């Protein structure tokens, strides 16, 4: 008798395992939860990090806040999961997070073989090198035989291999889990150069003991379009994330900022702005959101120019130039399809 009871109780405990793991669509689950679960970096200045009060800030964080504003009219309805480069895709694939906004490069392999979709590019970046000034190196072509500190599991490793093979040079890679560990090792002198996306190099340079003693070399050896990622299979969720980003870019193009959005909503006659703010046109019907979804985003988070300047631009310690992240009609390549 005891054996039967033991047996049946074991089977009963394992019963939940038999149900299919993931039935509903992401959008349904986010709506019923009431918040967006956002995967972000463990801590890179400008992209995702906590301040001393525990609030998350960064340009990737702002993308998630924009999605929350569009859905719930409240940019703070987001919960953040810090992820290392090795865990990020598994967390998204398994359903642990709803959207991954973690300075992730858009590549063919990731778009096609992981069951994921990239919803846009919020930062066009490229890979560069950081060296100490006392090394006396002025260009990446002088780095033959040098050792590099890299973060494991990133496109950085692959690009480094390609660049050195193409230029017939050799190098020694030293890989770490977290980007802060690479900075610490570079500071301690374990490697001659630090390589990562240029934006990260500026962010990591601030963490060094002597930031002025390190210089970013001029070469950019790869394309790194960074953007938010969602799972395949839920097109409605994909559209919402994609168009939240486009709304911010369009808002900057039309001159709508978080400061003047209310005043424009009341007074403007410009049909483009009126369509953006939900007063005419398709409003939120196609996306299944409220009419003022884009207005909420701009009011609570800001337009693209504002989030850029606040997090990585002149209003931040990084002071990165807009460069190719400027709007298409101002010399850069940020281009959003029209809202109509």
């Amino acid at each position, binding site marked *: 008798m005891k*054996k*039967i009871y033991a*047996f049946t109780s*074991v*089977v009963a405990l*394992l019963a939940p*395992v*038999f149900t*299919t*793991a*993931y039935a509903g669509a992401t959008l349904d689950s986010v709506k019923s939860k009431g918040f967006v679960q956002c995967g972000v970096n463990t801590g890179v200045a400008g992209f995702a990090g906590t301040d001393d009060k525990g609030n998350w800030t960064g340009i990737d964080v702002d993308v998630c806040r924009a999605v929350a504003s569009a859905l719930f009219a409240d940019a703070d309805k987001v919960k953040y999961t810090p992820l290392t*480069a*090795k865990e990020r*895709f*598994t967390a998204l*694939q398994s359903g642990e997070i709803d959207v991954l906004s973690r300075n992730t490069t858009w590549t063919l*392999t*990731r778009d096609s*073989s*992981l*069951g994921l979709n990239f919803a846009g590019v919020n930062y066009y970046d490229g890979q560069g090198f950081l060296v100490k000034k006392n*090394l006396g190196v002025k260009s990446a072509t002088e*780095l*033959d*035989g*040098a*050792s590099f*500190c890299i973060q*494991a*599991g*990133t496109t950085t*490793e*692959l690009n*480094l*291999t*390609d660049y050195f*093979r193409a230029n017939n040079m050799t*190098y*020694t*890679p*030293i*890989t*770490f*889990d977290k980007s802060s*560990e690479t900075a*610490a*090792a570079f500071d*301690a*002198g*374990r490697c*001659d150069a630090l390589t990562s996306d240029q934006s990260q190099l500026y962010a990591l340079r601030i963490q060094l003991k002597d930031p002025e003693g390190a210089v970013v070399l001029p070469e950019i050896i790869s394309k790194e379009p960074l953007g938010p990622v969602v*799972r*395949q*299979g839920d097109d409605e969720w994909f559209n919402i994330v994609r168009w939240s980003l486009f709304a911010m870019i369009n808002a900057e193009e039309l001159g709508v900022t978080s400061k003047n959005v209310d005043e424009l909503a009341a007074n403007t006659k410009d049909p483009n702005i009126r369509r953006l703010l939900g007063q005419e046109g398709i409003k939120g019907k196609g996306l299944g959101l409220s009419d003022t979804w884009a207005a909420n985003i701009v009011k609570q988070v800001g337009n693209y120019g504002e989030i850029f300047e606040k997090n990585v631009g002149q209003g931040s310690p990084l002071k990165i130039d807009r460069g190719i992240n400027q709007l298409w009609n101002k010399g850069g390549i940020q281009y959003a399809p029209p809202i109509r």
Partner: protein
Amino acid sequence: MAAEENSGSTPAKAALWRRPVFRSTVFQALLVLAIIYIGNTLLNNTLYNLEQRGISTGFGFLDVEAGFGIVQTLVDYQETDTFGRTFLVGLLNTLLVSFLGIIFATIIGFIMGVARLSKNWLVARLAAIYVETFRNIPLLLQIMFWYFIVLNKLPSPRQSYDFAGTIFLNKRGLSIPSPIFETGFWIVSVAIVLAIAIIIFISRWARARQERTGEQFHTFYVSLAILIGLPMLAFIAAGSPLSWEMPALRGFNFRGGFVIIPELAALLLALSIYTASFIAEAVRSGILAVSHGQTEAAFALGLRPSFTLRLIIIPQALRVIIPQLTSQYLNLTKNSSLATAVGYPDLVAVFAGTTLNQTGQAVEVIAMTMAVYLTISLTISAYMNWYNKKKQLVER
């Protein structure tokens, strides 16, 4: 009056379902079927879900070009090699650090365990402090401590410590000359094998002679002489078929020769010292488990303390020590996976880290990694159980 009169016939056989043997067989068979069913459902569920989400499955990724470099490879490795090759490289690195770690941890652990039982108060206290300190600090912190101590104290390559212009020590590692074996070296290898065979033969003969006549033979010194002398003779006879590749400072770092990277040194130091603190306690418990009467008898016979320890106490203590040693060796092997924290390219860092991230096939990669650790652990414990059986007291 006889209570049980049975008119001479044997008792009737109980019904099938009343027999304990039959019942237990049926239930065990049902349990096995249930386990197979659960396993099968789990597997099918996983495959179905992976397919639903568009995530690629299968082991085909092992033939895809890897495209990333690894700082320490015990076999030849280019960036154009496959992911399967990175698996091999990571596996060898894990085996290297586990093997060296086990050796060092055992040596340090035995020394510390015996030291703690020393009559010298200072030595005993120091050993106790060692054990208590290193047992109680988390291993990850110890690894990072050693790594940054090692890194920060060593000089940069351009100001390396150099020993006689051949060995260089700096932040990037210890560069030593590597031997280049030319043709004709096979004679020396044969000589080494021959020397080992002769030594085994001599030690057997010497022990048999001691059993017979009681005369001791200085086996150790003779073996040492043969081990060094015979290959040396072969080496000279073959015309010195060995040259050295010297490390030289070219550009940023030293090139040529072997480099022992600081990551390996830090990991080895931390693992050995940490595990040795546990092994010290195991050794101490084993020695204390041998009854004091053995020591007293040995002293009464006139044996010196060092002989007593080596010939009487430790062999009996081993019965208690070896099972605990097995656990500690397994712990050390699995703890070596913390290498990712310092950038040492072991199996977890290279395969379950970089390869998993580049290919996205988490299920296959983690399953392979778990299978490897399981195999290594089972091998170690199988060997230790065999050794334990050999050392057990045979009751008469």
